[in-house]
């Protein structure tokens, strides 16, 4: 019984131990930033490796907490993303005076995500969601002296608090109608009563805020632009990925009886999300803002995949998030490096980038190709599986709109590539030295983009773990 506790909650316990080590080191010693970052990156690597060994499935605390191979894999994807973000932020952090706090907050959000993914009860789910949301607001404010940073943090905390208010009201109505909070019991109690549909709409709005689905996306661009680049990449990849994992499992298990209702809702939301994301991405000049709108469009494609509601659908979402971790973090890695050294973030600054920085240009280009979905990269396969699972339902209108939007998205991704390779610039970004950690992160990302696309067993493995509706 007691060994069960340690084995099933292994990943959460490791993160907790790391948080305590960092806190005690911060209080008790006087380490330099450099040493501290080396130590933390080592611990995060250890955490990633430990995530792959000695896993079991099972339930704890009266069905409150459960884990299975798919959940372990999802947590490992998040751990990998955390390691990459931590490596990339090295250049920005080394001049910052609050390095330990950054890592403690970052790992607290990761812990919250782990609990949220493993939750088998709406109470634990809510606590995990808040633990993964509140520290990010503090992180968004991490450039303390910058006006934009505090504005972004304010916008984030107000909108995320409002989103959790909506979510909670939905949960309270679900509780009122069914009398239980456990996922397994809820699945048998839920029916298409008007009260439960209203509760579901509120829950959907709450989730929609967290993953920035279109009517609820208004905070995204501002927060992404204002927050430090490391936090932006964290928000756009890890934060969204974790909520997506939970969203899929909640839709497919708890709200199974309402499947026809949420299918129609997701249909409308996904079309709106893809279109708005694409149209706004076209007119952006700030690269961070541009990536924000491109990530909104990607969420639209993921929603198309979720509507499929089969084993293929759930596998394609997890696979796409894995691909998205690599491609988006590669793009943000280049942007973070350039912004940390030169402070330039406009698309026009990247004109003639290839002449001065060929390596960085290629990394950014591969990342953008993967985001757009050009065949040899993993992004193509990710989008292909998403559309395939969406097509299973036979709604060809949705698939046609999504496919046409993929073409539309080529325009703005290739606009950046054109600026990098073809345009000339009077004052190009000077030749940048790539430090060890960001270089390592870029190697991981680019290898990931190519390998996860070409090695079919990655997808087969995810597919074998997934369960559909």
């Amino acid at each position, binding site marked *: 019984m007691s060994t069960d506790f340690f084995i099933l909650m292994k990943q959460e316990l490791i993160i907790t131990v790391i948080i305590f080590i960092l806190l005690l080191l911060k209080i008790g010693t006087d380490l330099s930033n450099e040493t501290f970052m080396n130590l933390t990156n080592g611990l995060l690597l250890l955490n990633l490796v430990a995530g792959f060994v000695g896993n079991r499935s099972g339930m704890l605390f009266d069905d409150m907490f459960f884990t299975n191979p798919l959940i372990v894999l999802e947590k490992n994807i998040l751990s990998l993303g955390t390691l990459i973000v931590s490596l990339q932020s090295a250049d920005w952090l080394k001049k910052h005076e609050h390095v330990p706090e950054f890592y403690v907050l970052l790992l607290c959000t990761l812990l919250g995500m782990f609990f949220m993914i493993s939750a088998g009860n709406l*109470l634990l789910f809510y606590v995990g969601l808040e633990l993964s949301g509140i520290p990010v607001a503090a992180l968004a404010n991490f450039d303390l002296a910058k006006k934009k940073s505090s504005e972004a943090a304010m916008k984030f905390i*107000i909108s995320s608090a*409002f989103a959790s*208010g909506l979510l909670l009201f939905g949960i309270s109505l679900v509780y009122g109608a069914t*009398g239980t909070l456990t996922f397994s019991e809820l699945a048998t109690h839920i029916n298409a009563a008007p009260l439960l549909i209203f509760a579901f709409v509120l829950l959907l709005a709450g989730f929609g805020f967290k993953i920035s689905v279109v009517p609820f996306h208004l905070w995204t661009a501002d927060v992404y632009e204002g927050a430090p680049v490391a936090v932006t990449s964290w928000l756009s990849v890890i934060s969204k990925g974790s909520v997506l994992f939970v969203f899929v499992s909640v839709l497919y298990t708890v709200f199974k009886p309402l499947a026809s209702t949420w299918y129609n809702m997701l249909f409308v939301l996904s079309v709106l999300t893809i279109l708005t994301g694409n149209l706004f991405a076209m007119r952006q000049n700030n690269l961070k803002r541009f990536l924000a709108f491109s990530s909104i469009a990607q969420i639209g494609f993921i929603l198309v995949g979720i509507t499929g509601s089969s084993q293929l659908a759930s596998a394609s979402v997890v696979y796409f998030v894995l691909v998205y971790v690599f491609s988006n973090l590669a793009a943000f890695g280049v942007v973070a490096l350039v912004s940390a050294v030169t402070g330039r973030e406009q698309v026009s600054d990247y004109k003639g980038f290839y002449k001065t920085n060929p390596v960085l240009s290629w990394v950014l280009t591969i990342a953008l190709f993967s985001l757009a979905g050009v065949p040899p990269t993993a992004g193509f396969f990710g989008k292909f599986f998403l559309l395939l699972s969406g097509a299973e339902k036979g709604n060809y209108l949705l698939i046609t709109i999504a496919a046409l939007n993929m073409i539309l998205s080529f325009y703005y991704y290739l606009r950046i590539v054109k600026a990098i390779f073809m345009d000339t610039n009077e004052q190009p970004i000077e030749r940048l030295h790539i430090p060890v950690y960001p270089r390592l992160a870029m190697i991981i990302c680019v290898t990931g983009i190519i390998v996860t696309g070409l090695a079919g067993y990655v997808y087969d493995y995810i597919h074998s773990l997934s369960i559909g509706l």
Partner: protein
Amino acid sequence: MNSIPLTHILFVSTALFFIGMYGLFTRRNLITMLMSIELILNSVNINFVAFNKYMYPDKLNGVFFSLFIITVAAAEAAVAIAIIINLYRSHRSIDVEDTTEMKY
């Protein structure tokens, strides 16, 4: 003892929820917006406690949930107020109309 019907209490909590939402959308002062969010969360608390007492009195699920909401709301308010103080230091105002560094 149960002389007040459940519907009355639900009416109060729903009204509180929408008052909070209205306040969040119309007020321009950040502290007031934060208070509106607290109204929303408290309406949820009333819902949980009422449902628990009137409909499912054999288990204490709802009461515990509201305890957790109170705790998390306190943490959220602490972080939000710290952010607002920092915003005041950089902008010299806590009016959302003045935070216009980023648009569109």
